């Protein structure tokens, strides 16, 4: 009996809940696979998809967002072997699953911890509440390929932002495979969009894009590129998360800065009276 011929996977982009090839028709060889080489146009298309998803996702209840993030953890748990087969260490997959669970729980707690009533000196009701900033461009770290990726996506979306992620050019398979997890987790299309390819091609477009509200430069290793991107981001005053130090411990308690940097605080006043 002859050995079965395996069905190989085509790795594509993830935009608006779909898996298109790059509009440029290009790919590059990495991790023994042909991976889409996203163009500037793909980046702009991803921003359009992310913007279209903001209203529904930011408007969803915190409970609903928490449930969906927890569902991502469930789906990831079911596919752990797939990530191990890509070379992700088993304990890193476990940590990535647990991180989704940790962030899922924040959805309906952050507004309580980071908002609340303010005791103003007058007859006014005064309430501050955090809101998502909108569309966030994220440069994912190359390492750890899966835990790093999850650690930058989850804090951005748990509060209602949508993201366009530039995956690590050298470790894109974990990102595309995570997209398959996200696509089966009831996450609305466009909440997470993933681009593979060269950072120098897509990220400057995202940094300068006038319909992007914030940029997370965590995965930018080159200091000169990071500074250039921050300059571009200033054009519409994007909120900026600067690159993570090389020795960042991804297994440590993530803290809340990743979430709070991508939030706006809205304060509402109303007089009291009869």
């Amino acid at each position, binding site marked *: 009996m002859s050995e079965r011929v395996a069905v190989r996977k085509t790795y594509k982009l993830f935009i608006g809940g779909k898996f298109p090839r790059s509009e440029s028709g290009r790919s590059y060889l990495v991790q023994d696979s042909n991976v889409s080489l996203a163009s500037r146009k793909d980046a702009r298309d991803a921003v359009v998809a992310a913007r279209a998803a903001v209203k529904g996702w930011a408007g969803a209840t915190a409970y609903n967002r928490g449930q969906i993030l927890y569902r991502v953890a469930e789906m990831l748990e079911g596919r752990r072997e797939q990530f191990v087969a890509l070379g992700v260490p088993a304990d890193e997959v476990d940590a990535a699953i647990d991180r989704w669970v940790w962030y899922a729980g924040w959805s309906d707690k952050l507004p309580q911890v980071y908002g609340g009533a303010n005791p103003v*000196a*007058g007859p006014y009701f005064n309430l*501050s509440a955090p809101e998502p900033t909108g569309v966030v461009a994220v440069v994912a770290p190359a390492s750890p390929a899966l835990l790093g990726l999850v650690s930058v996506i989850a804090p951005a979306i748990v509060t209602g932002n949508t993201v366009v992620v530039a995956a690590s050019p050298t470790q894109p398979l974990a990102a595309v495979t995570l997209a398959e997890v996200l696509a089966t987790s009831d996450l609305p299309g466009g909440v997470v969009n993933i681009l593979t390819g060269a950072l120098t091609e897509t990220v400057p477009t995202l940094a300068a894009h006038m319909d992007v509200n914030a940029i997370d430069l965590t995965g930018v290793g080159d200091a000169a590129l990071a500074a250039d991107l921050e300059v571009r981001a*200033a*054009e519409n*005053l994007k909120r900026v998360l600067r690159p993570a130090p090389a020795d960042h411990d991804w297994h440590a308690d993530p803290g809340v800065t990743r979430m709070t940097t991508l939030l*706006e605080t*809205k*304060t*509402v006043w109303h007089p009291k009276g009869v």
Partner: protein
Amino acid sequence: MIFEYAPAPESRAIVDLRPSYGLFIDGEFVAGEDLHKTVNPATEEVLAEVVWAGGAEVDRAVRAARTAYEKVWGPMPGRDRAKYLFRIARLVQERSRELAVLESLDNGKPIRESRDVDLPLVAAHFFYYAGWADKLSHAGFGPDPKPLGVAAQVIPWNFPLLMLAWKIAPALAAGNTVVLKPAETTPLTALLFAEICQQADLPAGVVNIVTGAGDTGRALVEHPGVDKVAFTGSTEVGKAIARSVAGTRKKVTLELGGKAANIVFDDAPVDQAVEGIVNGIFFNQGHVCCAGSRLLVQESVAEQVLESLKRRMALLRVGDPLDKNTDIGAINSAEQLARIRELSDAGAAEGAQRWSPPCELPERGFWFAPTIFTGVTQAHRVAREEIFGPVLSVLTFRTPAEAVEKANNTPYGLSAGIWTDKGSRILWMADRLRAGVVWANTFNKFDPTSPFGGYKESGYGREGGRHGLEGYLDV
């Protein structure tokens, strides 16, 4: 029968101005070379001369702040920092009339506002943050949050002393030291504040005040020895600052321009709404980043609201800032007056209808009559650009969804107003308005406990409240 108001001028004798002021560096006033005059915008009379600090002087101030941070203020227990801030709050209260008169002299704002709004808020701000200095571990930023170091702070001319308080109080409470640059047209209350620091025996170098214009600000913000940049001012300069700190470790908060929508629904009590519209755009001559400069009024009541608004505007008293009856004072500078005129002329040229009440303006000084534009479209410059003066653009809408769409149709997102009797509509609207502060059935209310700051190109970070500490802590 017409009742004329008798003049009720506040005495300026309480202010003892020196002919010339130096820079306040390391606890002392230091003479400088580059002297410039600061004038009373209501009369163009020269009030005093101040120094415009150069690079070497800024460097000296930053080094003084660094030394004070490392040797004195950083190691000092929070409870002691608190006591200095409480002392400052009390001194501001004790000298509040003097400060209010000086603020009106140098800025042109009515004494009624500097006395009843600015100064009480300044004292309250120091009092509020004083109490945080020894409670930072309970502020929700971890068990032992650390200060950043030296803060470079650049403030505008519209609320000179209040903006100083918004900057200095949280910075010092969190354990930072500061170098603050007041605006070139309104340096005097900051220099009087420097005297208050001396009176409070605040350790030398904890607060440094360098006067000057844009070049001084740039030298300060770009100084490699600062760890934090806090700026309130124009969006254009805010973007330049965001570019200049790229690739550095400096933490930045920016509080920038606005073009706020003040939205009036058909069920709003008209008289209350009109008071809110007037307060929204004519408070402080409209020199307010969160001013309600775009009135969105529901079409069905537009005529009635405009009629009441015009009647009310005709009662506004424009004139001597030191007169206690004055509602609208002087425009802060010739430069700002030129900008207001340029944009207003553009509004008329683009086809909007301009209206001002009959209003006699003083001959000397910088003045602009309260003005409204009707028939404004969203494409008009007076609907898109921040005028920063007593000029209101009136647009109409039919449905709440249209009001939201128009209100959010701006790169800014600092504030918004809603006038309606329906509670659920207020909350529905407030959820959808992309603005950092939403005033419902009120406008232009401020409090030290209430976070203030913008969405989008109105900047980032919040000032005031627990949130205001975050910008001065390494978290």
